[in-house]
Each structure stands twice: as C-alpha cells, then as structure tokens.
C-alpha cells in the first residue's frame, strides 16, 4: 500500500515536472521542471529495486546533466520568449495529435501481453545492486560497454572540436 502511495505521489510529481518543462516560458523553469521529473523517476527506480540505476540517475542526470543545462542557459542568456513571435496554429494541432497518438500507441503496445511475454509482475527475485549489474555489464556486455567508452571519448573530442573550430574555419571543417 505504501508503495502504491509512493508511486502515486511521485508519478504526479513526475508528470507535473514534465508539464512544467513543456509550458514554462522561461527555460530556467523548464529546467527545474525536468529536474523534479528526474528525481521522481529515481524514486521509481528504487521502487523497482534498481538501486544502481537510481543512484546513477541522481548523480548523472539530476547532478551532471541538469547542471550542464543550467550552465548553458546562463551562458547564452535567458531569451525573451516573446521575441519569437506567435506560434502557427497548425503546428500546435500537429503537435498535440502526434503526442496523443504516441501516448495511445505506447499504452496500447504496453498492454499487449506479447510485449512482456509474462503476466505476472515482480515474481522474479531481482536486485539491481552494483554487483549484479556489474556482473552482467562486464560479462556479457563487455563489447557494448567498450563501445560506449569509445562513444564517450568521441563525444569528448567532438565537443572540443566544436569549441575550437567556429567561424572562419567552418568551411574547412565541413569539407
């Protein structure tokens, strides 16, 4: 019961955060909304016994990523949202139709038993401790893990490259 309550509260927090992010005129508010959604999700993970994922969620997302977002927002200045002018109506309609259909499709898909292949929930004894996850990650998934390492390296290099080559050098970088 306590779990149901916890789930309910934090589901609302997550949705509220997400909506805030969507509608806030000021990107800083958007960021704060997203932040709260992420915290809420971390709680969900704990509910699901994924302790490591929850921890990483807090540290990486709520910590590093969001900080980075805020940092960039401050760096490039908080835009005046009115400067963008009115939004075309057609865009809004398309947006809400697409988003709605998406939601319906996902729910529909999730409700089909063929997706999960199992009707029972939580029957297995699963504990997402660091040890369990590490076993899996460095056993079966070594090469994927190594690929992500390479990906991160490339991302780092790419970021540096973007920071260096701007303006006049653009043409050469493009060629």
């Amino acid at each position, binding site marked *: 019961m306590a*779990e149901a309550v916890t789930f309910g509260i934090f589901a609302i927090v997550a949705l509220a955060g997400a*909506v805030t992010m969507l509608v806030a005129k000021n*990107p800083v508010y958007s960021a704060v909304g997203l932040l709260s959604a992420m915290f809420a999700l971390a709680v969900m993970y704990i509910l699901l016994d994924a302790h490591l994922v929850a921890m990483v969620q807090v540290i*990486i997302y709520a910590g590093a990523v969001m900080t980075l977002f805020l940092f*960039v927002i401050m760096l490039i200045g908080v835009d005046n949202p009115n400067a*963008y002018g009115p939004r075309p109506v057609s*865009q809004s309609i398309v947006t809400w139709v697409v988003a709605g259909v*998406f939601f319906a499709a996902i729910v529909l898909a999730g409700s089909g038993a063929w997706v999960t292949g199992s009707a029972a929930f939580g029957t297995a004894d699963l504990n997402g401790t660091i040890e369990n996850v590490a076993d*899996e990650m460095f056993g079966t998934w070594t090469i994927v893990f190594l690929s*992500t390492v390479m990906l991160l390296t490339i991302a780092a290099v790419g970021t540096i490259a973007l920071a260096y080559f701007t303006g006049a050098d653009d043409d050469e970088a493009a060629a």
Partner: protein
Amino acid sequence: MSDIVTVDWYLILAAALFAIGVAGVLIRRNALVMFMSIELMLNSVNLTFVAVSKELGLIEGQVAALFVMVVAAAEVTVGLAIIVAIFRLRASANVDELAELKG
C-alpha cells in the same frame, strides 16, 4: 512489489512522459527546451526498461538503462556544444531560424 501497482502503471506513466517529451520537441522553439524534452523521452524509456526488467526478472533491462544514460550523457555534451556554437554564430537559440541542415 505490491499487487496494486502493476507494470502497467509504470508503462502508462512512461508513455505519458514520452508523449510530453514528443510534444516538447515539436512545439518549443527554444533549442534548450527541445533538448530537455529529448532527455525526458530518454528517461521515460529508461523507466520502461527498468520496469520490464523487474517484470521479467532480467538484469539486462537495468544494464540497458545504464547504457542509455551513458549515450544520453554523450549526446548532451555534444548537443549543448552545438547549441553554444550556434548561439555564438547567430546570437539566438531559436530553432526555426536555423536551416543549416537543408540538403
């Protein structure tokens, strides 16, 4: 795990978050907020992964979630770098003004 909160709840929550993310990408003109929406979508997928992982008793779901986070982190750094670079060039974060990707 109680029997009240089934996997369906988590999946519906994830679907809702994902839909909001989609809407954000499509409707917001501020590149930063679009980015945040993408992050939200990734998070909703993570939630699905973890929930289904619990459901099936397979640790792989959590591993996948971790990988998604890594990829997301990489993506954020590059993406933000691009935004900063574009901003330096155009002094604006309005996506509609950009057509650099025109083929």
